């Protein structure tokens, strides 16, 4: 069942990512990414990261990608046209990406036997969840990163206001 | 701190202080001119302390300052002069006020910039002569490029000045970069930048056992210096730079720094490699003499002619010092000083001529002698000094050099190269005299006809006559100067002789005949 889960949602993610690449309209790409994210959420869950699976859906698909869709709608972005630049880019881009992929997967597969197997991680029916562990880590060992993130968010808010606000 | 230990720092940095003061003063031309004059004169006065208190006969460095500067890498603030550099420092001090005087009228705007840069240049130059730490030396060496480049770029004569400045800078900078690699390599091998220590190590062959690397390092040093001299065929920048640069800059542009550096660093740190490359350098020197003279013959522009004459002179010195004989090195060093004075005087006169007629083109000049008697007098004296007329300074140097090159054991046919060099000297006399003839005598040229020139004024006389006097004094009373120079020359050549016998089989002559080190000279100088 685990393997089936992996292949179904992994395949879905790859297909959606391909679709992202092939679609001409930004909104289709954005929605493809949403599909990728949802499939990944399932995979996260299968690896025992249910909190992240939920966060993936709430933060990524539910907020970040909505923002994308929102901006695409706001700017009424149309289909992208194929230009000379895109041809040049695809000549350089596909082989480059393929090379990186080959390199990475070669390393992973050649060291695959050492990496071992995964077992279906957290079952959602169990009452225990790793959220409490995550949060206790967050507020003890990783307190500083957590607090510093607030500076990051502050900067992002500032930036969004500064850049997007119209000068009166 | 005694005067002796701080005098060198004073000499080096006084012009910089002056430059900063000038930069802070208002841009009033008169103020700037007089300020620069006062500063340079004072510097000259300070330099006179050196010959006055120099202990002749001692070989090491004198007036030394040696304090730690940077802990790691081990860099020290180490200054000092010996027989080689002492007179060069005095010479630089001497030429500076003359340079200021001669620029009095030639520089008619942005005086502040000019004199500030001029003074900065002086610091760099004197710094090169007195620095005994490789890092410090390299600092001054590179520093000397900058004011000169800006001087050429800003005060050059024609529209090609920026290009000439760039050319000058690149020619000097790129080999210097390689020089830095060489220096760093030496440091990596020895752990010191201190010149006296490196000289000892060089003499005892303890810098590195890697011969190929030593060779490359020595080449890195030599090429950088050779470009700065310039040695034929690395002289590409010379004529353009001289053509564009204002007189005062030209006076210090070529020769001294590069030749001094070869003597001090190439010979000091890489004695063996320097001797091995001597045949090539002698050949290049001889070719340079002939080439310079021949090209000078066909020039119509006075400044370019002077530029090629400079190339000839410098090649001559190269020939001398690479003979590795006491006579050759002594003569070479003497010629460096001579060239500074005679060449300087020549350029000053050319500059004065240009101020009057606005051209260096010999075809447009002619018959000037009738109008400017004082100038022609001085010009002829200078030319004769340049040519090497017996009784004037040039003769002493040329004679010593040629005799040195005849004795050398580092080249297969010293006679051949000496002959070529001598031919070059004769040609040199030819073009110089021909130039005098074309400019000062004969029919009145177009320019002198149109423009009413004026003879040398008091300021120019003040600048030029000391030089003329020096020609004679240095020609007649050469031993006075030689005392110090000889102590260096003997050392440089003597070291050669010692290593020669034991380590280095002479490739050209099978008998390992050591060049007789004139060890008595040292005693005789007392």
């Amino acid at each position, binding site marked *: 069942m685990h393997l089936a889960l992996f292949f179904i949602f992994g395949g879905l993610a790859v297909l959606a990512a391909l679709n992202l690449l092939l679609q001409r309209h930004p*909104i289709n790409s954005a*929605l493809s990414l*949403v599909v990728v994210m949802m499939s990944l959420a399932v995979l996260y869950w299968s690896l025992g990261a*249910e*909190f992240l699976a*939920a*966060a993936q*859906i*709430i933060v990524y*698909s*539910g*907020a970040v990608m*909505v*923002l994308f*869709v*929102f901006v*695409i*709608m*706001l700017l*009424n972005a149309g289909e992208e046209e194929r230009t000379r630049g895109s041809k040049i880019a695809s000549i350089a881009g596909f082989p480059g990406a393929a090379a990186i992929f080959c390199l990475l997967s070669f390393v992973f597969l050649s060291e695959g036997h050492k990496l071992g197997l995964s077992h279906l991680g*957290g079952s*959602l*029916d*169990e*009452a*225990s*969840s790793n*959220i*409490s562990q995550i949060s206790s880590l967050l507020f003890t060992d990783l307190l500083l990163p957590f607090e510093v993130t607030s500076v990051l968010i502050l900067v992002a808010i500032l930036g969004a206001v500064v850049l997007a606000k119209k000068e009166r | 701190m005694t005067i002796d230990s701080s005098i060198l720092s004073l000499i080096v940095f006084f012009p910089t202080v002056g430059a900063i003061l000038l930069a802070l003063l208002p841009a009033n031309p008169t103020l700037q001119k007089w300020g620069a004059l006062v500063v340079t004169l004072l510097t000259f006065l300070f330099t006179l302390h050196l010959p006055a208190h120099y202990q002749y006969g001692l070989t090491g460095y004198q007036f030394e300052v040696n304090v730690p500067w940077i802990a790691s890498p081990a860099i020290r603030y180490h200054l000092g002069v010996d027989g080689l550099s002492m007179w060069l420092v005095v010479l630089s001090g001497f030429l500076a006020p003359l340079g200021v005087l001669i620029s009095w009228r030639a520089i008619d705007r942005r005086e502040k910039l000019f004199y500030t840069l001029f003074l900065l240049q002086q610091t760099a130059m004197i710094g090169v002569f007195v620095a005994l730490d490789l890092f410090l030396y390299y600092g001054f060496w590179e520093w000397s490029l900058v004011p000169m480049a800006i001087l050429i770029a800003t005060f050059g004569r024609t529209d090609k000045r920026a290009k000439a400045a760039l050319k000058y800078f690149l020619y000097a900078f790129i080999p210097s970069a390689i020089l830095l690699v060489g220096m760093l390599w030496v440091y990596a091998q020895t752990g010191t930048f201190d010149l006296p220590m490196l000289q000892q190590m060089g003499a005892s062959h303890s810098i590195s056992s890697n011969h190929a690397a030593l060779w490359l390092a020595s080449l890195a040093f030599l090429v950088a210096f050779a470009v700065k001299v310039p040695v034929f065929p690395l002289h590409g920048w010379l004529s353009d730079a001289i053509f564009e640069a204002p007189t005062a800059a030209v006076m210090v542009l070529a020769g001294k720094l590069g030749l001094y550096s070869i003597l001090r660093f190439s010979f000091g740190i890489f004695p063996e490699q320097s001797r091995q490359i001597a045949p090539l350098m002698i050949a290049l020197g001889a070719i340079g003499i002939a080439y310079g003279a021949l090209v000078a013959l066909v020039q119509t522009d006075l400044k370019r002619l002077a530029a090629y004459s400079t190339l000839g002179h410098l090649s001559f010195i190269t020939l001398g010092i690479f003979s590795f004989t006491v006579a050759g090195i002594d003569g070479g060093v003497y010629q460096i000083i001579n060239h500074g004075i005679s060449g300087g005087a020549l350029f000053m006169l050319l500059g004065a001529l240009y101020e009057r007629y606005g051209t260096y083109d010999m075809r447009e000049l002619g018959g000037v002698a009738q109008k400017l008697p004082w100038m022609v007098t001085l010009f002829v004296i200078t030319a004769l000094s340049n040519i090497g007329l017996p009784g004037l300074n040039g003769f002493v140097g040329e004679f010593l050099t040629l005799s040195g090159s005849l004795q050398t054991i580092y080249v297969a046919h010293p006679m051949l190269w000496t002959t070529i060099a001598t031919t070059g000297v004769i040609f040199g006399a030819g073009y110089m005299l021909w130039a005098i003839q074309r400019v000062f005598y004969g029919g009145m040229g177009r320019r002198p006809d149109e423009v009413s020139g004026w003879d040398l004024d008091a300021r120019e006389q003040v600048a030029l006559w000391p030089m003329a006097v020096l020609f004679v004094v240095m020609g007649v009373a050469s031993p006075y100067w030689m005392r110090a120079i000889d102590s260096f020359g003997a050392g440089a050549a003597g070291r050669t002789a010692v290593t020669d016998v034991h380590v280095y089989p002479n490739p050209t002559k099978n008998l390992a005949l050591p060049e007789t080190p004139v060890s008595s000279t040292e005693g005789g100088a007392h």
Partner: protein
Amino acid sequence: MHLSDFQLFVLITIIKIAVVLVITLTAVAYTVLLERKVIGRIQNRWGPSRVGPFGLLQPLADGIKLFLKEDLMPMSVERPLFVAAPVIALACALVSVAVVPFGQTFKIRGVDIFEVSNVNIGLLVILGITSIGVYGIALSGWSSNNKYSLMGSLRASSQVISYELALGLSLVGVVLRAGSLNLRDIVNSQIGHGFLSWNFFGGLQFVGFFIYIMAAYAETNRAPFDLPEAESELVAGYHTEYSSMKFAMFFMAEYANMLTVSCVATLLFFGGASSPFEGWIPAFGPTWLQAILPIFWFVAKVFSFLFLYIWVRATLPRFRYDQLMSFGWKFLLPLAMANILATSLVMALRS
């Protein structure tokens, strides 16, 4: 027939899903009727009363009408997305009911029958699915290729994104008290002293509840935050171009969302399926009654929230758009943070 535990689990789960789906859809349909009736009464008129007794068959008639209407597809719409949008909207609205425990734990052979799925991060699931729901609205407006629709969906999506923050934060207090994201645990944390141990009263989470209900109204695009479909400005907002069943799906999604919101409010702030007198009055009656009675309480509470929804719609005027935004960002959000701070302080002091 002898079923293994797994097979039984699957079977019961499917049955549960079917039952819950049917009940939810029926509830949705009758919420519409309820709304029309109540608003009618408030406006001093009858409301629907012709079809069936008291108009009780009205939803059926509406359904038939919408089914049979011609499904118009405007020329220049972005077809796939135009079709997908209402499906997304409705699906998201219905799925979140799956984690709602609508009765007390009652297990048949290890399978809890009064909750479709007991997820240990149930609250996060609800939040996540709700946040996906906005795609339905956003895409519908954009794919309609109509400026009113676009404006409507722009408004809707920005409104939903903005209020999602306050909504999420308002629930933190409850989560802090329960120490779990499991909805069942949250409900169980409110048991002991009848309604006094509900989060709303005993947990002093009335501020949280207030924020939640405000934010939830905005999330569901209901009055007084129904800017996206402000008919006076935007015709019908994002579903202007929709007709027939597709329109019905949006309509159902909206009411299903109301239902979810009411369920969550009940679960988080009002003790879920527990009786208000629980702990004071001992359990009585046979087992089946003990199993059914909590459902009664649950439905009653949900019903009252639905009623509140309708009441608010009938009485409050619509916000202006900038007021809506500044209310969300400048009032609700800081208030929610203050609530979290106060709750955690109180908890820290008590322990």
